[in-house]
């Protein structure tokens, strides 16, 4: 079939369509039609010269003739082949159905203002939801605590494996490096005072009280909170959560509790490893750069660093773990059907849980300072 590009000629104000009126030639035909309409052209006299036409071409033709003309093509051009009339009629009828009035243009300030309002409202709602969800989790925990039969040990152990054991290498590596960096910083600053020996104290204080737990918690937020959100979000999108409810099972008890409990076990372990590994990093720098031997390092630790610093650090771990797990699960429950929503809530869960961990840590640091711990 010889293809001939679609064309629209104007002769004495009457348009003559010819050639292929197909999607391929859409842009060109569009210009022709705009020109013809500016010239005030009406409906063409005959459509016989159109070689081929598809829905895109028919839609263009409708702009020239009006949708009603095409819808009534049977009376107006009975000479056309039946298939072509069927196409033009179907497009004409569809166009008369889908004509919708254009929405009025809103005030330019309205968009940004509405956006600010929506975000503020969103933040408020998010916090209430989080508090409500924490309450729900605690209540479920309290009720199932007295019934050992409803403890989901297998699920908890599997979660501890995924969130704790599998995260050990990365936590150890990261804290080791940060420990080395802190020791270098300390050595550089303290050298001016001739107090390089205090690098040991700096590293030990930093990792026992703050860095061990906070680095592990941030890693957990990035690694596990996002995973929780994606897992529960996919289940929500697939109506699995609704299925659980109709089976008379509580998704909070079945899915959230094991995750929360598992994180409350994993994070203290990770924190402990983080502390050891960070101090090890510091010790290595002391050995290489400051000539403080391992035995000397250990002796200073034993003499000067009280066990309460360790307790302050590790005591924060279950709290952070709880917050990270709850935020991860809650964001998963908030996912709606779309792929974009999964992405949005995963991002939100990581950002929120890191923010909450740092905020809580700041509050805890103030509290411990005032208490003299």
């Amino acid at each position, binding site marked *: 079939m010889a293809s001939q590009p679609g064309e629209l000629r104007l002769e004495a104000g009457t348009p003559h369509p010819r050639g292929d009126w197909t999607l391929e030639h*859409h842009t060109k035909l569009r210009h022709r039609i705009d020109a013809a309409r500016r010239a005030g052209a009406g409906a063409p006299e005959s459509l016989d010269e159109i070689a081929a036409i598809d829905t895109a071409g028919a839609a263009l033709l409708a702009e020239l003739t009006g949708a009603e003309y095409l819808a009534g093509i049977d009376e107006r051009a009975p000479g056309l082949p039946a298939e072509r009339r069927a196409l033009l009629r179907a497009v004409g009828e569809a166009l008369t*159905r889908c004509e*919708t009035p254009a929405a009025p243009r809103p005030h330019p300030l309205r968009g940004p203002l509405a956006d600010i309002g929506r975000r503020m409202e969103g933040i408020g709602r998010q916090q209430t939801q989080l508090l409500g969800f924490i309450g729900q989790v605690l209540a479920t925990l309290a009720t199932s605590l007295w019934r050992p039969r409803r403890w989901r040990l297998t699920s908890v152990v599997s979660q501890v494996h995924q969130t704790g054991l599998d995260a050990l290498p990365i936590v150890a590596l990261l804290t080791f490096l940060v420990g080395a960096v802190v020791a270098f910083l300390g050595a550089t600053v303290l050298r001016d005072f001739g107090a390089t020996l205090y690098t040991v104290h700096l590293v030990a204080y930093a990792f026992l009280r703050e860095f061990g737990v906070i680095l592990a918690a941030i890693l957990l937020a990035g690694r596990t909170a996002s995973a929780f959100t994606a897992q529960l979000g996919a289940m929500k999108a697939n109506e699995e959560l609704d299925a659980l409810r109709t089976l008379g099972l509580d998704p909070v008890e079945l899915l959230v509790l094991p995750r929360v409990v598992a994180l409350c076990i994993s994070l203290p372990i990770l924190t402990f490893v983080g502390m050891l590994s960070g101090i090890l990093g510091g010790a290595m720098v002391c050995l290489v750069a400051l000539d403080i031997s391992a035995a000397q390092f250990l002796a200073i630790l034993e003499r000067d660093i009280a066990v309460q610093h360790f307790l302050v650090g590790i005591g924060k771990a279950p709290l952070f773990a709880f917050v990270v797990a709850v935020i991860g699960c809650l964001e998963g429950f908030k996912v709606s059907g779309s792929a974009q929503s999964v992405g949005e809530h995963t991002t939100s869960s990581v950002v929120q849980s890191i923010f909450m961990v740092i905020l809580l840590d700041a509050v805890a640091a103030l509290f411990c300072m005032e208490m003299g711990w």
Partner: protein
Amino acid sequence: MSETPQPLIRVRDLENRFGRHVVHQGLDLDLYPGEILGVVGGSGTGKSVLLRSIVGLLRPSAGSIEVFGQDLQRLPAAERSHLEQRFGVLFQRGALFTSLTLAENVALPLIEHAGLPRPEAEALARLKLALAGLPGQAATQYPAELSGGMIKRAALARALALDPEVLFLDEPTAGLDPIGAAAFDQLLLTLRDALGLSVFLVTHDLDTLYTACDRVAVLARGHVLVADRLESVAATDDDWIRDYFHGPRGRAAEGAARTAKES
């Protein structure tokens, strides 16, 4: 459908296996221009696998599939993409892009392949949605806000976006109420007549077979048992076919189709 003997799609000796599980063996099938071919078969006989092999989503283990006279597997990527634009595929569950509105879903191939500017593409998308029988306000909605029937219609509109020559439908009426399913059958016939489509229709729906299909291919035991007009297929001497077409549901659908034709 004997006026054009040259088939649009020619499947010869197709073999598909997953590990040791053989789905197809020695499968032959033709799709002729302008016909609606219904493909039926019990669950697990590889109807969807056949569809996926033809549209090129699955590389068959052996055999040849010629589409428009060319072997899809042997074509370079660019030509293949060009050929694939002549297909429209409706997936079993719609597979609409959930983060786009319906109009954007349909406009996407128009913008990407036909190079239309966005407003034009969306106007054309609204037309396609209306052709598929959706109301005007549905265009700005997201797939999550729609019922199953509307999703099927929107997916059909997207399959029709580039004015394809061959339409592949994977169980289009599954999960629709009988009224919606009957309307979908009518829509299919109207579109076929208006747009001159050839349709490859995988279905379980006996009513669809009786109202819409020109030919029926029965898939069983890894190959096509018979592919012919419905009356001859139904008369074939085979246990499965007898159970399928002459079971209680088959008889009901046949009766309904006959009364519809007489009235």
